[in-house]
């Protein structure tokens, strides 16, 4: 397969809330939460930001980074579990706002935290088949955690966009492999504001089984092993899960370090491991190999194997790095956070 990443762009809102601040409200011990989750703070959208505005900013960064002609984008998919409309695509707004309309196909994807990587796979197939020249796959969320729920400490906001094509690649996608079962570990019913989850059931039968099965499946298919890779990224609902699954699979903490953005960002859901990949590409050199596995509750995982090309140097500074987006945050208290997250009904 000669398909890969032509460009990428990320966006993170500037607001952050610290885990201590949330713990204080619910009378929880912040240290035990930080130890348990390995997350210190999470991003919070501005009052006028949502999944669509975040997706547009990420998409524009991807367009600008490599000087993409938006009219060459033949397909655009936005993966999210927090599309502002239940019916009416986020992707039409994004396509219009980057100047990609009208000659393209778009749709919104939803698969908990892996809708964005499913979008990458869809674009890969369409590019490789010759249906389209370029495809854009976006993962973006302003994820919701119910007040006081464990998810509230990590549910964050951010988005990442990848342009998939055949020419001028910054990273070849050598192969991809998916593992999917019907495992109801987490869901949100139509019209409900907050998701429900199975507590510890989301761990072993959910995250660990699917991530490790997809990862092992890809390495088996390709005949690779963890030591063949310079970097690895696993879906990051917190800091602990990806660290543990990396260890289980035989990846070192050094390999996952550049992409482990969750500790300072929280879980950006559909943007999660795609953000880790963006942070890794920000520092990768030509020839580096990167391993990535997403996870979406419900449940499934998509694994990818990438090799970075020397074009990475040419486009690296064309858009803000993840590190830059994480820098200079504005810390807010819980009351402001509640207002930003529309938890106060007017």
């Amino acid at each position, binding site marked *: 397969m000669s398909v890969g990443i032509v460009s990428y762009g990320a966006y993170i809102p500037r607001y952050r809330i610290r885990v201590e601040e949330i713990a204080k409200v619910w009378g929880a011990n912040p240290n035990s939460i930080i130890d348990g989750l390995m997350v210190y703070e999470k991003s919070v959208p501005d009052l006028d930001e949502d999944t669509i505005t975040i997706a547009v*900013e990420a998409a524009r960064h991807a367009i600008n980074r490599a000087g993409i002609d938006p009219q060459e984008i033949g397909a655009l998919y936005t993966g999210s579990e927090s599309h502002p409309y239940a019916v009416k695509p986020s992707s039409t707004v994004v396509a219009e706002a980057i100047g990609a309309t009208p000659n393209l196909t778009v749709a919104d994807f939803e698969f908990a935290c892996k809708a964005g990587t499913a979008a990458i796979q869809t674009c890969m197939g369409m590019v490789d088949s010759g249906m389209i020249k370029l495809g854009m796959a976006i993962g973006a969320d302003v994820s919701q955690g119910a007040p006081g729920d464990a998810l509230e400490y990590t549910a964050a906001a951010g988005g990442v966009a990848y342009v998939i094509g055949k020419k001028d690649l910054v990273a070849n996608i050598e192969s991809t492999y998916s593992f999917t079962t019907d495992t109801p570990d987490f869901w949100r019913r139509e019209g409900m504001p907050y998701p429900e989850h199975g507590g510890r059931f989301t761990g072993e039968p959910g995250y660990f089984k699917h991530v490790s099965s997809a990862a092992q499946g890809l390495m088996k298919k390709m005949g690779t092993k963890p030591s063949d890779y310079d970097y690895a990224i696993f879906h990051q609902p917190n800091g602990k899960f990806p660290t543990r699954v990396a260890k289980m699979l035989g990846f070192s903490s050094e390999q996952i370090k550049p992409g482990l953005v969750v500790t300072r960002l929280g879980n950006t859901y559909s943007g999660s491991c795609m953000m880790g990949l963006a942070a890794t590409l920000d520092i990768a050199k030509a020839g580096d190999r990167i391993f990535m596995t997403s996870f979406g509750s419900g449940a499934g995982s998509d694994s990818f194997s990438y090799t970075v090309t020397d074009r990475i140097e040419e486009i690296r500074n064309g858009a803000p790095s993840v590190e830059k987006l994480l820098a200079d945050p504005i810390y807010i208290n819980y009351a402001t956070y509640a207002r930003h997250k529309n938890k106060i009904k007017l």
Partner: protein
Amino acid sequence: MSVPRFWRRLKNIYNLIGTHCEKCGSFLYPPRNMCPKCRRNGMTIPFKFKGTGEVLTYTIVHTGAKDYTKLTPYILAIIKLDEGPQLTSQVICDHSQIRIGMKVKAAFRKLGEESEKGMIYYGTKFVPMEG
């Protein structure tokens, strides 16, 4: 604003697409179908502005407009685009940071929504230019 009325101008608002008069060279935003200088002799074509400019004047609105009560207080400003035209928009930054002459760039944000059930309006606001 009604849905068709917003939809008609949505591309302009999302992407700062205004008008260029090829006759006199004027750059116009908001878009116009007649050049105010050349009038009937003008030759107007759509023109996409870069989205960079500076704050000409501003205010911090404490009693917000109807669709903006959730955002109040907010910074309302007149932005002079680098290509010349001036427009009204909001600047997203710390309220102590805003000043006349501040360099800004376009950002994509929610403008408002009709209600929890209604249409959501998106468009261009401005954020400080880095550095």
